[in-house]
């Protein structure tokens, strides 16, 4: 085994790795539309954010707001009808959108791996789970390892995610949902990616398993010092495991900052409504929909601020002009004309 692959062994649990300066990922004014027979679906509208090395970013927002679309843009795995209109995705210095297909293929999993929304079906039913992980290793390790070395690595990863290493010789149908999801995490780690995108990695699991998997994911992330983008519509989950938080609405990133800042003082009306309907981070999750009115139609997104039809603070300006992303305190960005009017969080008892 090469030295750089054995990060697991060297590091102390819980110890935060040294952070290099400079972000690992920089998304810059990304615009992505889906072409449909009725027109363009504006799924990602002018989204910018950065993630530092070893940091984690949570992306929240209601269903259909474009979270998965961002994830797929980062992987460059969009469906055929998707068009990236503008923007940059800079991963560790290179703009992914400028790479050839072949170069991008080599980056996938090696630099940027993914834990999928529908991870239950993400295993090919006819191959052993270990062999499917080995496929990634064979493709991406600088020096293609022998089967024995690769298997040793997979066994190590299995232990790390709480699976019996003997399971690597089993087929996917012999795994329970939670085990499959753990194995997916093991596979995501197999090539030491710089960043992992976890798109609703636990939605298909029951609550107890969800907690365990999340906990493991977080401790692994700390241990490996990799960056992670964690996508969910469950804001309470995200708050527990990420240090930065982005709130999306209708294809736009509307608020972005340290998780604790956004939680303590959400400045965007949508974030504020979302958070005040979540009674407590640790308490029971009530997935109330605090919003009145229709969810936005991204074929014909509202003018100006996309939230204005449902916003209690909306003014005439909101319907006419799009609010820019503004840094209202260091590292805390909000896109709203009237963020100052958004009150403090309601009391915990609400």
């Amino acid at each position, binding site marked *: 085994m090469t030295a750089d692959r054995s990060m697991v062994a060297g590091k102390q649990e819980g110890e935060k790795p040294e952070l290099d300066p400079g972000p690992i990922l920089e998304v810059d004014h990304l615009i992505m539309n889906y072409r449909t027979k009725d027109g363009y679906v504006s799924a990602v509208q002018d989204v910018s954010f950065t993630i530092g090395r070893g940091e984690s970013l949570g992306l929240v927002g209601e269903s259909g707001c474009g979270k998965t679309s961002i994830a797929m843009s980062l992987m460059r*795995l969009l469906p055929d009808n998707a068009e990236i209109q503008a923007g940059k995705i800079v991963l560790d210095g290179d703009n992914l959108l400028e790479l050839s297909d072949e170069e991008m293929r080599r980056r*996938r999993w090696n630099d940027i*791996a993914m834990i999928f929304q529908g991870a239950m079906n993400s295993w090919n039913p006819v191959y052993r789970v270990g062999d499917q992980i080995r496929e990634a290793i064979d493709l991406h390790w600088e020096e293609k390892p022998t089967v024995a070395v690769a298997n040793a690595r997979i066994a190590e990863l299995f232990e790390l995610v709480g699976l019996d290493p003997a399971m690597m010789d089993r*087929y996917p149908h012999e795994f329970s949902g939670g085990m499959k999801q753990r194995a997916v995490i093991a596979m995501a780690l197999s090539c030491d990616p710089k960043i992992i995108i976890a798109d609703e990695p636990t939605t298909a699991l029951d609550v107890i398993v969800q907690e365990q998997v999340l906990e493991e994911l977080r401790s692994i992330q700390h241990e490996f010092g990799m960056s992670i983008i964690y996508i969910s519509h469950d804001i309470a989950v995200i708050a527990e495991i990420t240090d930065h938080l982005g709130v999306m609405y209708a294809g736009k990133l509307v608020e972005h900052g340290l998780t604790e800042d956004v939680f303590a003082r959400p400045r965007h009306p949508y974030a504020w409504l979302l958070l005040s309907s979540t009674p407590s981070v640790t308490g029971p999750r009530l997935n109330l929909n605090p919003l009145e009115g229709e969810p936005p139609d991204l074929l014909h997104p509202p003018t100006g601020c996309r939230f204005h039809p449902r916003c209690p603070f909306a003014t005439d300006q909101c319907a006419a002009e799009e609010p820019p992303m503004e840094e209202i305190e260091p590292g805390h960005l909000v896109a709203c004309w009237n963020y100052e009017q958004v009150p403090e969080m309601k009391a915990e008892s609400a």
Partner: protein
Amino acid sequence: MVRYLTIRLLQMFVLFLVFLTILFFLINAQPGDISAQFVGNPDIPPEAKQILRERLGLDQPLFAQYLFYIRNVLTLNLGVSFDHYPRTVADILLTALPRTLYLFGIATLLSYIVGFQTGKMVAWRRGSAAETGTMVTSIILYTVFYPWFAILMLWFFGSQLNWFPLGKFLTPAQWFDAPYTANQVFNTMLLSMFLAGAGVALVVWGTGKFVAEPVPRTRARRILFALIAISMLAFWLISPMSRYAADIAYHTVLPVTTLTLVFYAAITLLTRSSMLETLREDYIFTARAKGVPEKVIRDRHAARNAMLPVTTSFVLAIAFIIGGGIVTESIFSWPGLGLTLLNAVNVEDLPVAMGALAFIGLLALFAHLVADVLYAFLDPRIRVQG
């Protein structure tokens, strides 16, 4: 796997008995007495009639006859042909069986291999001109009235172009002073094909089991495959039989091609739709995200899974294949089970007809078994549970 096989074989046996029962009572439900058919036949000497009557138990009640019949079939004691007296039915059928196996075997194998590859490529290049062309051809071939198509092939390649003989199994003139019977040559051909096939299977299995690293495994396979091919070639080059084998092979081209074309069209259509399904699966997306090259995604991930429904369909297609086989044999005068059955029915050679039907039933069950085993082999979800 052993348990799975045992269960399957038992099921097969029971099904075969059911089939024989139905066959027996269907034939007996026909108007007229069986014995009357050959009692009146002047070609059969009286002693033979008496033997037949006793062997078939025709002087017994129907149920006793039935038990007699089952016992006779299971011991391959199928009686004597009325038409080819005194040849036994077993002898006639055992001569015809390999010829049918050969025709079906080659046509099925070829159409599956080529059809699968075509269907795969066509699904992969969805929307291309190649796809449209293949689809149109396949749909025409698949929906065409098969006997008409077979006659057309015979007329065009046999009669118009004169490329191939007009049916039959061999050119009698060439066999005038042959030191072998047609059967000897033909069975040697079959045996060598079977050995080559078994060799390939053995190599795949053995290298898969004993050579862990992929690169030496591929190398070992190539070398061993080459060895098999060379030894086959050497055998047929040296063997004095090859001249006669070539004559038989020449006669097989047209019927095999005709049958293959029709199966091929069906397999292509099936594989294409199955492949389009698998391409939408989540694990294909996983493979892309993993950075697996597109060709590998197509072959190792999509096509491998698309194979499963195609294999299942084989079971459903067995009736079609047998029907097609009988038509092919009769149009190309190919002396297999189908033609034997047809001739026997025409001259009311009841023992041969019933024997041929029993054999065809057995063949269908056997094909079923092969498909089942193959499926279990391809799909770990079945393999492990069994």
